[in-house]
């Protein structure tokens, strides 16, 4: 076999390995990214499945028990489509309206761990976990963002048990 062919085989082997790795890793770790409305509309489909949701944190519902490290709070639906967010006046405004509007869909969240610094009223929460049969969302990881105060260079703060 010529060297050229040997090289081609080597390259194909590496390419195949890369494709396989991407495929299997995507399959193993892909998560649906849903809004609260989407999750609640397809409840039965998603119960117990690992998903990621986004919502606005309602400040007065935050309850933290430092003894058990149990953190409970409720999030309100925010639209997922960016265009809609822009049309409604930007993320800060959308989050504010989501929290104050009593007709929005709400979702209770439970998390075990340290209380994140950026968890506060009208923060945007991106939560990874699963919906329990009891309708409560069990979070493994919290990602929080406060769009209102600082310019964009603020990092998201992630906290979770699987880091």
């Amino acid at each position, binding site marked *: 076999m010529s*060297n050229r062919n040997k*090289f081609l085989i080597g390259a194909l082997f590496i390419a195949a390995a890369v494709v396989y790795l991407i495929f299997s890793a995507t399959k193993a*770790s892909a998560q649906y990214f849903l809004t609260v409305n989407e999750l609640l509309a397809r409840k039965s489909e998603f119960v117990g499945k690992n998903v990621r949701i986004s919502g606005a944190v309602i400040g007065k519902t935050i309850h933290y028990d*430092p003894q058990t490290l149990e953190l409970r709070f409720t999030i309100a639906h925010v639209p997922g489509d960016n265009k809609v967010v822009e049309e409604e006046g930007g993320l800060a405004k959308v989050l504010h309206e989501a929290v104050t509007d009593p007709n929005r869909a709400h979702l209770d969240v439970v998390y075990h761990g*340290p209380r994140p610094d950026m968890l*506060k009223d009208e923060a945007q929460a991106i939560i990874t976990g699963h919906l329990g049969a009891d309708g409560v969302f069990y979070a493994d990881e919290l990602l929080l963002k406060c769009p209102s105060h600082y310019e964009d*260079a603020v990092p998201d703060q992630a906290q979770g048990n699987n880091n």
Partner: protein
Amino acid sequence: MLAHIGYGALLLSFLFSLYAIGAAFYGAQRGRPDWLESARRAVLVVWPLLTLSAVSIVALLLTNQFQIEYVASVTSREMPVYLKITALWGGQAGSLIFWSWLMATFTFVLMLRSWKRDREFLPWVIIVTMVTLAFFLGLSLFVENPFARLWATLDGHTVKAMFRPAGAMPFTPQDGNGLNPLLRHPGMILHPPFLYAGFVAFVIPYAFAMASLITGRTDARWIRITRRWSLAAWLFLSLGLILGMRWSYDVLGWGGYWGWDPVEVAALLPWLSGTAFLHSVMIQEKEELLKHWNMVLIILTYALVIFGTFLTRSGVLSSVHAFAQSAIGPLFFAFIGITFTASLYLLMRRWNDLKSDLRIESLLSREALFTFNNMVFMGIVVVAFWGVIFPILSELVTGQKVTVGPPFYRKATGPLFALLLLLMGIAPLSAWGYASAKRLKKLIWLPVVLAFLTTGGLLAIGIRSVWALVGFWLVAFTAFVTLSEFVRGVRARMRRGEALPVAFLRLISRNRRRYGGYIVHLGVIVMATGIIGTQFFATQTQATVPQGGKITLGHYTMTYDGLQEFFAPDGRHVARAIVSVYKDGKKVGVVHPRRDFYLDSQQPMTIPGVRSTWLDDFYVILVDWQPISVEGATFKVFHQPLVNWIWTGALIFILGTLVAAWPEADPETAKRRRPRHAARREARASAS
């Protein structure tokens, strides 16, 4: 006033860069050196103008000119001076100016070099760099203007604009928003400039590559000219990444250093393709091979640099469902699309000129192993790029956003990084050109045996994770091979009568590229050891304990001795726990995890207390505490084995890069060695 000066200077630098593009093009087309010289001078003018513009922003920041929207959004009165200066790159508008200023600085330096031997490259280098610069300046002028003022309109809104909108009144807020406390850390202050310097410096080799394609001077000259630029770019990018990791570890309080956040990945992508590029250009210099591939790599690196700037700065990824949230998104995509297509077109046009009459002769030769290394690097680029764009793709295709997180990256890149380590281990044992399996076998057995002995030792002390053992085997093997290269080189010199230290220093200083590269490899090996340690053996626990209570994790025990609360002069309320750390029952130190509460921004910040040794870190976070009456506190505790190896490895890595980049002034090496490809051609000619 200051704002107008800054804006005027910005506008002028934009016009001068456009002029330079036009004059360079005309000069090249008509063969008019006078026009070319005029273009060169225009480039030289851009830098002072942009410096003036950037200095104006800094002056506005320093003097609390909150009527300027940018100043109000990134600073506040009580911020210390150094933070006000570094606020230049604290927000989007300012950091775009900073990017442009770096670009102008680098091209300024470039214009001052002697162009005698490379006159034909000059116009095209000017055009490529100035087109890139003009794009960024255009963004600053027309979309993200850092000099825009705040105005109160009649209907009660506040708007930002450079000039007074009809009927609006100037508006000056009492104070600015300030900088997020999380960003007030040396790692985070230095991280963006290093990252940007790395991004921008990669534009220079790209510019020469394009000049080489356009002029048809397709030998390795463009690579030789830009070797140091590439190394500098790579060093800056590496430093930027490492500082970001350190910041994450010190400040974010989750015990980790790398979260595969899309913004991190965006900075990693050009580093990966740049690393591949640094390796494969060596093959072109030595063997005149892989010319197409080097072009592809530098084009890709340039595109990833622009993509990375866009991702890290535009804020698009930090929000949930967001691409093209800010106005600059589509512009960036258009720019990347146009430059990428144009570059590939130029490459296609020269495809045949770049063909080499030489071939890789052996699969075990160094050039062959380098080629495989390149393929693996590209594999990692593809994986990481997939991770970033998968959510967007899935939304486009299925209408439903599906994301992949850190587990995806770990699973998909882990085996590829392991393969890279293996190649890094084998490559030094092979030779350029023809390498025989016999020679390889002769050299390889000792490192293999030593690596197995090391792994056996680790097994004996109780490490059972198979993948960790595989990782440690690879690390040990590569380390022994690299070290044996030093030993062999030093021995050869000692046989010629040199003393050990002299032999060692001369070995490195007279082959800086080679041994600098090996030092970089050693740095990578040390870092890899740390990464394996933290990835496979990190443990954590959390508990609430009364004062005097204990938390045990592995060999470590901590006791909660007390809590101090006080106000710091810079507007923080500090709650600081006193925690004693015991290892196997013996007291080894006291740490102070704390929680700062910034009064102005109502933002808490968690600072871990870390007891750090070369073997492991014991990392304590104060989660919560109760008033004095109850005297209990909640802690989260991490045990991070070998994490210090990452930072130590990074230092070795930087040292190696500096050795490799240091100019060779030694008379012994100043005599140019004849490139191998010349000898090969002659040998072939005489054989036929």
